[in-house]
C-alpha cells in the first residue's frame, strides 16, 4: 500500500482544525459573555456579575491560551501541506487571512493581558473596554476566517490569470454568496455552544448548593439567551441550507442521500448511502418532506448525485450522517430550552434536580454539533478545495512524501492527545472550584500565581521609577 500524501494531509488538516475549532467555538461566546458581564457590572455595580465574570475569565484564560497555540499551527498547514493551493489562491485568500491576523489576533492577544492581569492597573471602564475588545477581536477573527472559507465554497469576484486566482472586486470576494449565511450560522453556533457550557456548569453547582446566587444568575440569563438563539439557529440553518442548495446542489444531494433527481422528493430520516451502488440502503423515508424542506414546495425538484460524474461527488455517507448529527443536536437543544421555559413559567427552574442534571449532560452538545456541521460543509465541498475550480488533489505540496505526512500526523495526534486531556483536567479543576468569594476574586485572574507583576501586586499604587 502506498501512502497518499493527499489523503494523509487531509486527515492531518482535519485533525488539527477539529481540535482548534473547539476553542473558538467556546472562546468566541465566552468573550462576549464576559464583555456583557463586565458591562453589567460597570453599570449596576452588582458584585454578582463581577464574581461570575472573574470565574469565567479564569476558564477563558486557559482556553484562550490553548486556542492561540493550536491556532499558530493552522496558517503553517497552508504552506507545508497545501503549497499549491497557497500559490494558486493566495492573491485572494492571503489578504483575508492576513486581515484576520492583523485585526483580530492582536486585538485579542494585547487586550487579553489587561483583562487577565490588569483589573487593578487600569480604571474600571478601561478594564471593561479591554473585555469588549477581546470579544470584538474574536468576532473579527470569525469574520475573516469564514470569509476565506466561504469564498472557497462559493468563489466570487475573481478572475483567472495564468492558472492563478486574482481578485477583481474585494466586496464580492468577502461578501460572496454563502458568506452572510455561514457567518451568522457559525457565530450563533459558537454562542449556543458556550451557552450550554455555562448552564451546565451553573447546574453542576446548583445541584450541590454552592455559589447559589451566582449560578442562578448564570442559569437564568443564559437560558433567556438560548431561548432566543436556539430557534433562531434552526432558522439560520434552514436559510444556510437553501443557500447551499442553490450554489452547491451536489453537497445537498449527498447530505440528503438522494441519488436520483426527482420532483416531490422524500426526506430520508435514516439510511446508509452506498457510494459504489449509488443507492441509499435501509432508507426510512417521509414522502414529499425533502422537497418541502429544500424548495418549500411539495413537488419541488431535488437533484440527485447521479447528475454528477463519479469523480465529482462528495462522499455521501459521511455527509448524510454528520448532517443528521448536527440537526439532531439542534432539535435536542430546542427541547431543552422549551423545557426550561416551561419550568421557569412554573417557578421551578432552579430546583428541578432532573433538569439540572440534563443541563450538565448537555455541556458537550454544542461542540459535537460544531464539529459535525464543520464536517458537513467541508467534506461536502470535496473533491474540490475551491469549489469547481481547484481539486483538493491538485492543491497538495508536490515535494511532500506520504512518509513525511505520516510522521507529522503521528506527532500531532500524540501531542493533541496529551495536551487536550491535560488542559481539560485543569479546566475541570477550575470549574469544580466554582465562583469564588469576594476575597479571592479581588486578585488578578491568573491569581493562583504565587508572585505577580509588581504593579499588579501593589495595586494601583504608582511606584517611583528607579
Amino acid at each position, binding site marked *: 500500500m502506498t501512502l497518499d500524501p493527499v489523503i494523509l494531509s487531509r486527515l492531518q488538516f482535519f485533525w488539527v482544525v477539529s481540535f482548534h475549532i473547539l476553542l473558538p467555538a467556546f472562546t468566541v461566546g465566552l468573550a462576549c459573555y464576559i464583555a456583557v458581564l463586565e458591562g453589567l457590572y460597570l453599570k449596576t455595580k452588582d458584585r454578582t456579575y463581577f464574581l461570575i465574570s472573574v470565574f469565567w475569565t479564569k476558564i477563558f484564560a486557559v482556553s484562550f491560551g490553548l486556542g492561540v497555540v493550536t491556532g499558530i499551527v493552522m496558517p503553517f498547514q497552508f504552506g507545508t501541506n497545501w503549497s499549491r493551493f497557497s500559490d494558486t489562491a493566495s492573491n485572494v485568500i492571503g489578504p483575508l487571512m492576513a486581515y484576520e*491576523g492583523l485585526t483580530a489576533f492582536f486585538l485579542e492577544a494585547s487586550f487579553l493581558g489587561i483583562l487577565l492581569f490588569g483589573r487593578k492597573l487600569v480604571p474600571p471602564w478601561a478594564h471593561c473596554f479591554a473585555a469588549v475588545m477581546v470579544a470584538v477581536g474574536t468576532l473579527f477573527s470569525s469574520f475573516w476566517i469564514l470569509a476565506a472559507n466561504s469564498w472557497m465554497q462559493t468563489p466570487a469576484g475573481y478572475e483567472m490569470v495564468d492558472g492563478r486566482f486574482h481578485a477583481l472586486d474585494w466586496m464580492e470576494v468577502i461578501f460572496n454568496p454563502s458568506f452572510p449565511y455561514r457567518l451568522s450560522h457559525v457565530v450563533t453556533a459558537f454562542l449556543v455552544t458556550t451557552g450550554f457550557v455555562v448552564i451546565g456548569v451553573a447546574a453542576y453547582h446548583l445541584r450541590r448548593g454552592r455559589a447559589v446566587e451566582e449560578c442562578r444568575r448564570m442559569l437564568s440569563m443564559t437560558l433567556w439567551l438560548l431561548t432566543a438563539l436556539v430557534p433562531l439557529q434552526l432558522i439560520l440553518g434552514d436559510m444556510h441550507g437553501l443557500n447551499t442548495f442553490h450554489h452547491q446542489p451536489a453537497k445537498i444531494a449527498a447530505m440528503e442521500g438522494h441519488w436520483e433527481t426527482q420532483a416531490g422528493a422524500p426526506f430520508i430520516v435514516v439510511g446508509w448511502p452506498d457510494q459504489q451502488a449509488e443507492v441509499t440502503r435501509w432508507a426510512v423515508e417521509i414522502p414529499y418532506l425533502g422537497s418541502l424542506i429544500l424548495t418549500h414546495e411539495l413537488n419541488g425538484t431535488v437533484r440527485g448525485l447521479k447528475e454528477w460524474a463519479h469523480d465529482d461527488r462528495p462522499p455521501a455517507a459521511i455527509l448524510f450522517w454528520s448532517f443528521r448529527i448536527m440537526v439532531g443536536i439542534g432539535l435536542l437543544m430546542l427541547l431543552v430550552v422549551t423545557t426550561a421555559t416551561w419550568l421557569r413559567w412554573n417557578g421551578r427552574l432552579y430546583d428541578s434536580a432532573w433538569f439540572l442534571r440534563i443541563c450538565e449532560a448537555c455541556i458537550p452538545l454544542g461542540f459535537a454539533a460544531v464539529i459535525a456541521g464543520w464536517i458537513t460543509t467541508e467534506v461536502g465541498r470535496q473533491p474540490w478545495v475551491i469549489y469547481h475550480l481547484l481539486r483538493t488533489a491538485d492543491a497538495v505540496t508536490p515535494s511532500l512524501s506520504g512518509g513525511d505526512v505520516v510522521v507529522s500526523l503521528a506527532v500531532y495526534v500524540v501531542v493533541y492527545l496529551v495536551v487536550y486531556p491535560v488542559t481539560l483536567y485543569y479546566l475541570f479543576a477550575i470549574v469544580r472550584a466554582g465562583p469564588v468569594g469576594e476575597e479571592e476574586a479581588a486578585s488578578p485572574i491568573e491569581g493562583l500565581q504565587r508572585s505577580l507583576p509588581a504593579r499588579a501586586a501593589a495595586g494601583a499604587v504608582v511606584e517611583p521609577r528607579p
Partner: protein
Amino acid sequence: MTAPLDFVPLWTLILGFGVFMYVLMDGFDLGVGILFRHAPGDAARDLIMNSVAPIWDGNETWLVLGGLALLAAFPLAFAIILPALYFPILIMVVALIFRGIAFELRFKAAPSSRHRWDAAFHYGSLVATLAQGFVLGAFVQGFRVEGRFFVGGSFDWLRPFSVLTAISLVLGYGLLGATWLIMKTEGTLQDWARARARRLLIWVLISIGAVSLWTPFLEPRIMERWFSWPNVVLLSPVPIVTLWLALWVWRAIDRRAEFLPFLGAIALFTMGYVGLAISLWPNIVPHVINLWDAAAAPRSQAFLLVGTLFLLPVIVGYTAWSYWVFRGKVRAGGGYH
C-alpha cells in the same frame, strides 16, 4: 494593463519589520525560557515566568503576522519555503504548544507536578529556538527550486551551517532573555541574570563571528556583495558597529545598568538582521527568486496595504500600552493581600 504602482518595497519593509519584531519579542521570552531551568530556585522561576506571562501571547502573534504577511504579500516564497522547512516548522509549533500551555497551567499544577511544567516551558523554549535556528540556516543556504516548486528533500535543512545557526540563535535569545531579566528583576536573581548575560555575550560574539565568516562561502554572490570593491569599504561599518555595540553592552552590564543591556542586545540583533538583509537582498527565496517575482498581484498587495498601514501603528501602539501597564520590576506576591 498599465503598469501599476510598485508596492513591493513597502511590503518588504512591513514583512521585515514583522519578522524582526517577532525575533526580538518572542526572542526575549524564548530566551527567558531557555535560562529558566538553571535559575537559582523555585521562587526565582516563578518570578522569571511572571516577567513574561502577561505579554508572551502578544509576542507570539508576531509569528502569525509574519507567516500571514508572507502568504499574502509574497505567496510564491511562502509556497516554496514552507514545504522545504516541513519538519523544522512541525517541531517549532509543537514546542510552542507545550511552552504556551506551561504558561497557563504551571501555576495551577500541584507542587508535585510543577516540575513537569517547568520542563515543558524550558524544553519547549529551547526546542522552538533550535527549530527557528535551523529555519534561519536553511533559509540562508537556499532551497532547490524548479519552476514554482520546492524540489529538494525533507531533510535538506539539516546541514552543518544550520546546526551553527541553531546554536547561535539559542545563545542570542539567551542573551536577550538575560538582559530582559536584568531589567525586570532585582537582588540575587538580577545578579544571576547579569552573570549569565556576561557569559552569553561572549558566546554570542563568537557565534556572530563564525556565522559571518561562514556565510560568504555558501554562495559566491554573498562573497561578492561583501568583499568586492567598493562594497568592502561601504559595508565595513556593519562589523565595526557590531563590535562596538558588544563592547558597549559589556560595559553597561559592568556598570550594573538596568535597561541599557537589553537595549544593547536588541541593537546587536538589529546589526545581525541588517547583515543578513545585505547578504540576501533582493531575494526572498535566497539565491533564486527575488521579491518582485514572488510578490502577490498588485491589487492584493494594495488591498491589504490599506488596512495594514492603518492597523500596524495601532497594533504597535497598544503593544506599547500593554508593556507600559506591566512595566517595572516583578516581585514575589508578598506585598499583596
